[in-house]
């Protein structure tokens, strides 16, 4: 085996330049690990979510769903006796806020008799085997995940909020078949209707069709019997919606990991490129004594592949570790809030792991490819004689191709989302990155020409080197460019996002106090009596109430949030995008997502299913909504009440009476209901909490940025270490000519600064462009919200400057070894 025989010739060389190899390895490990971690965490969360849904759907062929507030239970009588339907299982789902905890619990009111034939996974099991205990009214049955989370045992009391009252539910048993992953509670549907004030309402009906009935046809015929806003869905629809919802976020993170991996590939490239230059004569000799071109190429690519493969394997291991930690610390959505109520477990995925190992190897191979090709094409006769092995012809790059890529990126931005994913945006990011790398030599040459030729000798030497042999700088700068571009783009995007969210909150929270009865989607509400008491509380000036609901507008689409609150005719006080349109008749204000998902535009007449009836409304304007990426509509509270007759509200925005004390008023309001039932918050508090959640969501992003920058710096250090070793003779010669060691140090520092500077400059430019793509294309298409550009100039400046300084330091440190060599010896030495 030629491969085995020649291994010492090549792998020995890999071991000899340990530092560069290690940096390349670390970069690949990090890239693979991050990608793997994101993948593993989301796979765990999604599969748990999916399992939970499958449990919930059980053997149901179809599900009837409606607005969040539910629909009339008489639909159940119609569907249960429909000739196509074998079994119909009525469900009333309530998000019950847990008293004294900032958490809610999913409570399902069910008919245990039907469960056995439709969703047996939800069948409760009572303590002591009492099979009919579920009918005992106040009894709830908890899934193991819920019991663990809440720390309650059978027989204990669970305090939840219903409306604005507190309920004590007896834990009567568990749900043995519900799996361990999902936190939920089951109780009798009649009790749930009464306790949560949902008499006559259902939120879902699970249907099992008669044998031989086609689900598609049945769906059609059943839909015809249903009122507006109540839809027949396949059970998979909800899982798809959840997967879609989190997919954009997941793909964004994976993309960041891919960029880390790309940086790793660049590091392999620079390490291999420099190593190949150093070993030019070695290869020439090997070729002279009969090593074939192919074998040489194969071995050099093999060196990269070995690093990549090892990096891939280590990366997958580290990635699983990271995923485990992330699941424990941040949860299945990495803190982004998509999978509340789930306790996902990490599982080893052979296929995904293999793919990530392969990706590591591919990064190694890709990085080694060009240098290997260059080494293999070297003419041995010349290389054997060549004096200075440190000559790296970086060439002028491919500026035209680079420009073409940039133009291509611009075009890619215009591509509409594919299957909800901003693929055009990602393509544009890739184009910009690749284009910038190809333009790097031109930028380096331009910089060298612009820099003053004078100054101290060390500076002159450094600039001359950049001008004459930009190859070195380019190799070192490519990694810097990638990481800086990523970091800058993310910084710009996050800063813009945060700034926009901040402004949005300010516009959305004009009142002095906010009062709510639990979360918007929970079973808590403020009834009319309480509304009156709130308005009459001393210190309260004016009150604006808000009602929250969720509407089903189209099959297969996630519910759209409905907010009913006082809105003036011109939309004053709303965070409007564009101008309001005068509407004759009732108006609806839509979020940007409604534009993207349903194609609604201001001035158009649209139909909303309110209280089971289609209601025609005019779109009066578009408002910015960072809270609900599946869409939200807002209508005036008075109109809503007139149209639906629903007198309940969920929260209240309170302007204080002149001279009233905010704190005292807040206390008075809290005292209107039992302890822990009403929450009063100050706008500042809400803003702080929201921004804290925002920052937590982006914590992972910051981590990725830091890693990318570290990788870029490692690249500078590695390439300079490799170069410095190769340039020992040059340093010796300079010492001969009378340069002090300090001057050589300065020269190296300036070379490092220049190389990094080229990378940072190009990276900032590319990062700015990518940031714009992220804001205007990726975010808009993924999450359907716009934001105002906000460039954190100072941070970017400090960051870029710091990076240049660090690169200079890294170059000096890398060169110290070489400078320490005895100058005379270095010149005499043949290598």
């Amino acid at each position, binding site marked *: 085996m030629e491969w085995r025989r020649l291994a010492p010739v090549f792998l020995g060389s890999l071991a000899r330049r340990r530092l560069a190899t290690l940096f390349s390895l670390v970069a690949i490990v990090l890239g693979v690990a991050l990608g793997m971690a994101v993948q593993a965490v989301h796979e765990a969360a999604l599969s748990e979510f999916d399992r939970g849904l499958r449990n919930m759907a059980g053997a149901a062929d179809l599900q009837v769903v409606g607005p969040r507030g539910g629909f009339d*239970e008489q639909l159940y*009588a119609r569907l249960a006796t429909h000739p196509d339907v074998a079994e119909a299982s009525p469900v009333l789902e309530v998000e019950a806020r847990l008293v004294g905890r900032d958490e809610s619990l999913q409570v399902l009111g069910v*008919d245990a008799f039907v469960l056995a034939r439709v969703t047996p996974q939800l069948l409760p099991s009572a303590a002591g*085997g009492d099979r009919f205990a579920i*009918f*005992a009214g106040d009894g709830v049955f908890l899934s193991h995940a819920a019991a663990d989370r809440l720390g309650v045992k059978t027989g204990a009391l669970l305090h939840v909020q219903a409306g604005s009252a507190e309920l004590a539910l007896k834990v009567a048993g568990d749900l043995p078949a519900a799996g361990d992953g999902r936190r939920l509670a089951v109780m*009798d549907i*009649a009790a749930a209707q009464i306790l949560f004030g949902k008499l006559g309402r259902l939120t879902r009906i699970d249907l099992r069709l008669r044998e031989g009935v086609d689900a598609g046809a049945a769906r059609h015929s059943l839909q015809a019997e249903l009122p507006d806003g109540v839809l027949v869905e396949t059970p998979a629809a909800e899982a798809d919606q959840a997967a879609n919802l989190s997919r954009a976020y997941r793909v964004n993170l994976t993309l960041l990991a891919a960029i880390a991996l790309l940086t790793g590939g660049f590091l392999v490239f620079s390490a291999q490129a420099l190593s190949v230059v150093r070993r030019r004569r070695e290869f020439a000799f090997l070729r002279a004594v009969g090593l074939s071109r192919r074998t040489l190429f194969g071995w050099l690519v093999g060196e990269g592949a070995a690093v990549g493969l090892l990096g891939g394997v280590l990366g997958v291991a580290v990635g699983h570790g990271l995923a485990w930690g992330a699941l424990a610390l941040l949860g299945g959505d990495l803190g982004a809030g998509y999978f509340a109520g789930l306790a996902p477990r990490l599982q080893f995925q052979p296929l995904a792991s293999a793919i990530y190992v392969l990706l590591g190897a591919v990064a190694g191979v890709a990085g080694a490819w060009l240098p290997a090709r260059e080494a293999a094409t070297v003419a041995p006769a010349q290389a054997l004689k060549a004096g200075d092995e440190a000559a790296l012809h970086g060439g002028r790059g491919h500026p035209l191709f680079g420009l073409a890529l940039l133009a291509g990126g611009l075009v890619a931005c215009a591509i509409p989302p594919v299957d909800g994913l901003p693929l055009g945006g990602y393509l544009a990011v890739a184009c910009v990155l690749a284009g910038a790398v190809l333009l790097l030599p031109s930028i380096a040459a331009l910089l060298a020409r612009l820099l003053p030729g004078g100054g101290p000798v060390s500076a002159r030497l450094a600039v001359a080197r950049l001008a004459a042999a930009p190859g070195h700088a380019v190799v070192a700068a490519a990694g810097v460019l990638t990481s800086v571009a990523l970091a800058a783009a993310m910084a710009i995007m996050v800063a813009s996002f945060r700034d926009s969210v901040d402004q949005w909150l300010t516009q959305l929270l004009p009142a002095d106090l906010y009062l709510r009865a639990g979360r918007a989607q929970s079973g808590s509400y403020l009834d009319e009596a309480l509304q009156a008491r709130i308005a009459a509380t001393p210190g309260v000036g004016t009150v604006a109430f808000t009602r929250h609901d969720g509407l089903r507008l189209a099959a297969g689409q996630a519910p759209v949030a409905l907010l009913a609150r006082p809105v003036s005719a011109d939309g004053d006080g709303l965070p409007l995008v564009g101008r309001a349109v005068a509407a004759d008749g009732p108006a609806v204000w839509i979020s940007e997502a409604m534009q993207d998902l349903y194609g609604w535009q201001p001035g158009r007449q649209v139909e909303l299913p309110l209280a089971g009836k289609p209601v025609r409304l005019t779109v009066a304007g578009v408002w910015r909504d960072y809270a609900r990426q599946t869409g939200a509509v807002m209508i005036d509270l008075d109109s809503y009440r007139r149209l639906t007759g629903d007198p309940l509200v969920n929260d209240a925005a309170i302007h204080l009476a002149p001279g009233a004390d905010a704190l005292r008023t807040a206390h008075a309001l809290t005292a209107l209901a039992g302890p822990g039932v009403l929450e009063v918050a100050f706008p500042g508090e809400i803003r702080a909490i929201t921004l804290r959640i925002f920052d937590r969501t982006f914590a992972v992003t910051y981590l990725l940025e830091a890693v990318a920058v570290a990788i870029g710096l490692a690249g500078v250090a590695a390439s300079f270490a490799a170069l410095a070793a190769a340039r020992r003779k040059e340093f010796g010669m300079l010492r001969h000519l009378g340069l002090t060691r300090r001057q050589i140090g300065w020269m190296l520092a300036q070379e490092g600064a220049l190389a990094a500077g080229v990378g940072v400059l190009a990276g900032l430019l590319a990062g700015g462009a990518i940031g714009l793509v992220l804001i205007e294309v990726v975010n808009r298409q993924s999450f359907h919200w716009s934001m105002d550009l906000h460039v954190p100039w100072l941070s970017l400046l400090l960051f870029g400057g710091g990076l240049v300084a660090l690169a200079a330091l890294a170059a000096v440190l890398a060169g110290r070894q070489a400078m320490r060599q005895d100058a005379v010896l270095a010149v005499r030495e043949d290598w």
Partner: protein
Amino acid sequence: MERRRFLLALALGAAGRSAMAAVDFAPVLPGRRLVFPADHGAHPDFRTEWWYATGWLNLPDGSPLGFQTTFFRVRTGVGEDSPSAFAPRQLILAHAAIADPRLGRLRHGERSARVGFGRAGFALGQTGVWVGDWRFALDGGRYRAEVHADDFAYALELQPAGPPLLNGQGGFSAKAADPRHASYYYSRPQLAVSGSVTLDGKQQPVRGKAWLDHEWSSELLPEGAKGWDWVGLNLDDGSALMAFRLRDGHGRALWAAATWQLAGGGARVMRPAEIAFTPGREWRSPRTAITYPVEWRLRVGEREFELRPLLDDQELDSRRSTGSVYWEGAVRVVEGGRELGRGYLEMTGYGERIRVG
């Protein structure tokens, strides 16, 4: 019959008891005259009630089948004042089975639902009870039983031969010396059956003889009762016999009762001392490991019958729904080596698993 209430007592358990304490169920009092057709219908004020049809069928090729149709109505005592239309005030539970010697075991199915939304219900003043597409009703002087289970279905018409056979004292059936433990109970023996049975997708006409029990009450079993043995036998001479006994934990009889329907009309109610159940050959269920005496000697007054099963394995495992396991099967009646008639035997409380309510 008490036996069926026992099932429900097991099933309802704590929920029944705790919630029922607050509810006034109608009492079973001696001396109340049963009035027909009003008493064919449901009695929702009482806690439990059932219509229980069992019998022998013959396929066109002459091979025998046993069948069972049971509809329970249960007033849970829960949610009596609840405004929710889903309140589980009244439940309907149904069991159905076919005993097929060629299969070697029972085919059975079950349905249960709370009353309301057209899912399940019962009629007053006339027999009529249904859950989903299962129903049992008296219509134009004939009972109609319709059942659609996963692996079988049947639609049968049951034609009574005469007036109801009142058990106990004019329909007041005592279960113990204490008169609180009693039920209203009448039987319809010698029902002529015609209709169709669908097995393995194949529908076939059938004819046969059946027995119907209708019983309602509010009180639980007497203390100490662990199970019971019951028979309803249609004899070829036109007479019929209902007999049961309650057993304690040691298999001793706590109480027994029997009613003779005489061939020429008229009935004779036997005293407990005149009745003796003697277990014979045993059979052990491979599924539940419960051992049942599948052959019996039954002495009622002067007569002594042997009971021989159509097949040994007529165990019905309904642990998934009502939570009980019992043996309910077709038997031949033999006296002096000669087959005199056919009927159904029910045995409960033989398993360790059964929890006494």
